[in-house]
């Protein structure tokens, strides 16, 4: 099942709504990395609230996604990791280092807004 990508002002929001195959995940990654350029987005939010399993492939794909999007000049936030999923992940040694995480969509958007303001002030 393909994941819909919504454009919300300068951000892209992808909400995963069901269990994804590895292929779906790679497709999502490629689509987001593409659209960040074409839509000139400043940030990407991937909402994984509905995922009750996060295996090593999924987390590696998400981490790669974040790195690629950083190279394309935008920020990525992974939001909505469930408590049980989070603990299972660290027990497997998956910690998504260097990837920003937030509690939910709202927090993710707030984080990107804060980042954006800092950027403007720096100019």
């Amino acid at each position: 099942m393909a994941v819909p990508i919504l454009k919300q002002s300068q951000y892209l929001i992808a909400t995963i709504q069901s269990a994804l195959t590895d292929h779906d995940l790679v497709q999502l990654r490629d689509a987001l990395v593409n659209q960040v350029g074409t839509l000139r987005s400043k940030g990407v939010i991937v909402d994984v609230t509905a995922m009750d399993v996060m295996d090593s492939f999924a987390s590696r794909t998400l981490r790669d996604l974040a790195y690629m999007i950083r190279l394309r000049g935008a920020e990525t936030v992974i939001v909505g990791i469930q408590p049980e999923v989070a603990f299972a992940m660290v027990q497997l040694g998956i910690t998504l280092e260097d990837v920003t995480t937030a509690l939910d969509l709202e927090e993710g958007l707030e984080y990107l807004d804060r980042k954006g303001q800092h950027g403007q002030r720096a100019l």
Partner: protein
Amino acid sequence: MKIAKDQSLGIQEPVSDSTAALLRELVAHLRQHRTELREEWARRITQAKLLTAMSDEEIFAEATSVYDNYVEALETGTFEALQAYARNLSERIIPRGVQTDEVVGIVLLLRDVLARSLFAKYQADFKLLNRILDAYEPAANRIANTVAVGFVQERERIIREQQEAIRELSTPVLQVRERLLILPIIGVMDPQRARQLTEQLLRGIRANRARVVVIDITGVAAIDSHVANHLVQTVEASRLLGATVIVTGLSPEIAQTLVNIGVDLGKMNTVGDLQGGIEEAERLLGYKVVPLTEGSSAPA
């Protein structure tokens, strides 16, 4: 339940007609001499200084119902009613401090009292006595077993419940400001408690929408490598939920342990004491505490 059924089948099967007749005779004898046997039993309980937590009247009342249940179990050969009664009895007497040896003791006393009465009744006919005892002993032993096991199981259930309750109480997750939780840990950290703590913390982060968590371990005397790694995992899992963790109050001993076992401290954000931790958390959240100085305190 299933096991109990199988066991009761096991005892019913070998009961031949003659044994059944003997048991019937036995039950009739026990019913007939109910009053004096009960009194004798209660007297011996007091003599043996068992059930000291209960008054003589209470002992006699309990003795009566145990006696009746006992006779009924002998008569029917089924133990469900007796099991239920044993559980109920345990529930009532455990809070009063009755010990396992007392319960086992009184049931064995009853068995002895009844056996004595059988000796007295059948002493003239040694063969018949033997056959009566053959019928009586296995059933009596089963009963003693059932009551004792029921008591111990009830005790274990209470212990489990209390352990659960203590665990729940001992790891509070408290919100001190909007988006700021503190988690004071006091006492011994074992792997099970560490796991429960993590679960409660992660749930608390979600429920309170926390962005910063201060874990204070001033009250923890020692920590082993298993728990230390668990702590690090908790910090990482919290980060995946979008919360920053600050650990405070590491004693010199714990600091030594952590360094000696080589826990990766790069990911841990530590501050000396709880006050410092809360100040650091407030800074991260953008709060600033300003003292109300005289003169400028009340905006007119």
